[in-house]
């Protein structure tokens, strides 16, 4: 193993990690807002990937162009899921934890079934996108262009999200609602509206990630499952509810995955991520940057 291979895999691990952060941040945002883990998050990613795929195959829209459309579509979808399902799950008086976990789990299974039914279980891929299959070399290190652009986008998205939460009225309402939902209602902010918009925003973010992922990953009904688990690990590592935590957690997971792949068979690379996750939560049960 040369120094070059090590740098090479850490560099691609870093890129992948930034994307993991982008996939996970919506999950973290929603959790921070209302203490609910969306167990259908991976299926949201899957839908976004199909969105990019169909826009490409029917309208020849490159994923880079269709990305805003996919994100907008996911925004509407996420807000609708809140209004139609999650809102009612939050009203449960008994078995609260169970209801929240299994309502979104059931949704995940339904979405997977719908994808199998309407999109067939076939593996799809976007064959000739602007980014797909290209690599560039920087100082002797080869980096895949889709991941590079995805990582750049992830950094932009995190920056925008930070600005949004700190500087805009809605962002402040979001922050205030997560601090104290009851008091927020007293000053006339409609809690339901904030929650719906929060779900929309979180889903739009995973929509962005999905559009990029579609350029270099196979698209099939179960594709969300493995990424969902990584997203939970990212979020739990960074601390549920922390946007910066998702960013840092994503990078950490990407690097750990790349280093594990260096020393163990590739099929075991996820074991490294999971082991580090367990180690962190056993020592810090709230994750690295979790405050709640």
């Amino acid at each position, binding site marked *: 193993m040369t120094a070059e291979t090590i740098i090479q895999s850490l560099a691609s691990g870093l890129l992948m990690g930034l994307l993991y952060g982008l996939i996970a941040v919506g999950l973290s945002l929603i959790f921070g807002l209302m203490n609910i883990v969306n167990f259908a998050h991976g299926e949201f990613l899957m839908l976004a990937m199909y969105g990019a795929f169909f826009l490409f195959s029917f309208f020849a829209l490159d994923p880079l162009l269709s990305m805003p459309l996919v994100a907008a579509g996911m925004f509407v979808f996420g807000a609708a899921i809140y209004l139609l399902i999650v809102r009612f*799950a939050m009203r449960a008086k008994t078995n609260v934890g*169970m209801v929240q976990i299994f*309502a979104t789990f059931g949704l995940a299974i*339904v979405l*997977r079934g719908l994808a199998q*039914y309407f999109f067939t*279980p076939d593996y799809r891929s976007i064959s000739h996108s602007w980014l797909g299959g290209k690599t560039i070399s920087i100082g002797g290190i080869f980096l895949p262009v889709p991941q590079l652009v995805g990582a750049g986008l992830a950094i932009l998205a995190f920056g925008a999200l930070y600005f949004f939460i700190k500087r805009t009225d809605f962002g402040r309402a979001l922050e205030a609602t997560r601090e104290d939902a009851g008091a927020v209602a007293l000053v006339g902010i409609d809690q339901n509206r904030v929650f719906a918009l929060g779900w929309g925003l979180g889903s739009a973010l995973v929509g962005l990630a999905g559009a990029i992922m579609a350029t270099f990953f196979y698209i099939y009904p179960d594709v969300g499952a493995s990424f969902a688990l990584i997203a939970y690990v990212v979020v739990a590592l960074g601390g*549920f509810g922390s946007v910066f935590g998702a960013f840092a957690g994503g990078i950490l997971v990407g690097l750990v995955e790349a280093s594990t792949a260096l020393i163990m068979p590739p099929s*075991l690379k996820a074991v490294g991520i999971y082991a580090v996750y*367990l180690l962190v939560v056993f020592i810090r049960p709230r994750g690295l940057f979790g405050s709640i």
Partner: protein
Amino acid sequence: MHDVTHAKQRRRDLILAAVFVALAACVPLFVKDVYVQNIMVLTLMYAGLSQSWNILGGYCGQISLGHALYFGLGAYVTAILLTKFDVLPWFGMIAGGLISALIALALGYPTFRLGGHYFAIATIVIAEIAYLLFLNWDWAGAALGIDIMVREDSWAKFQFTRSKLPYFYFALFFAAVAWLVTWWLENSKWGYWWRAVKDNPDAAESLGVVVFKSKMGAGAISAFLTAIGGAFYAMFVSYIDPESVMSFQFSLLISLPAVLGGIGTLWGPVLGAVVLIPVTELTRSFIGGSGRGVDLIVYGGLIVIVSLTRPDGLLGLFSRKRKKEAVR
């Protein structure tokens, strides 16, 4: 006064269970169809598995989404001991159960300190690690799994070539034992602590150590019984691989009957399994082949609807009636 009705209720539950077991034992005398018998075996197995899950997930409120780990361990220990060391499956079953219980104790120590969602995700992750390790473990058959050769009809080897009936009776026995353990635990010291903690989380703080110990106990019992179910499954299908016994899908399948029927209740897992397993098996065979994914839609939809409208599970339908009768 309350104690009297409580004791009466418990006795009634026990009699009801005995009646159900007796009735179920007679069903194969009339139902000869192998396909239907197969569904009955699976229903009983899931009733027992979910009852075992319910001890930890329902009564203790520790929602585990990684019980496939214990199920898979039971299946693997039994299959490996039988095929590689010629150890009879009955011993393999017990060995698998004990190993699972020990692992549950070792894992319980760090995981029970994690709150709600963190606990659930930690259990998924732990089971996933085991799944990946078994998938890459050549000695244990890796992705190809282990084929258990069935040569003869033998109770000692728990193998039957012609009839499904012995499997049916063992599955019935397994479900009955899991039910009985739950019935007994409900009225034990631990059962009271769990209920107290559920009703009043602050009480958990003051009970601290004992509650932690009782959770460890629940984890070990739950894992032991789940592994027995896994051992049975290995012998029943006579072929196992990581995908079919240790994947996340299985963890979900183990928990769902309890969730649908009524989490943390004595009859919930039984009711849930009786509703869920035939429904999913029938949708799978009638429309599953042609209408891809329809079985998933039906089954996921059922979970969403029940958790939104009946957080107490389907059992809530019965107990409400019962309460109304009592008022009259």
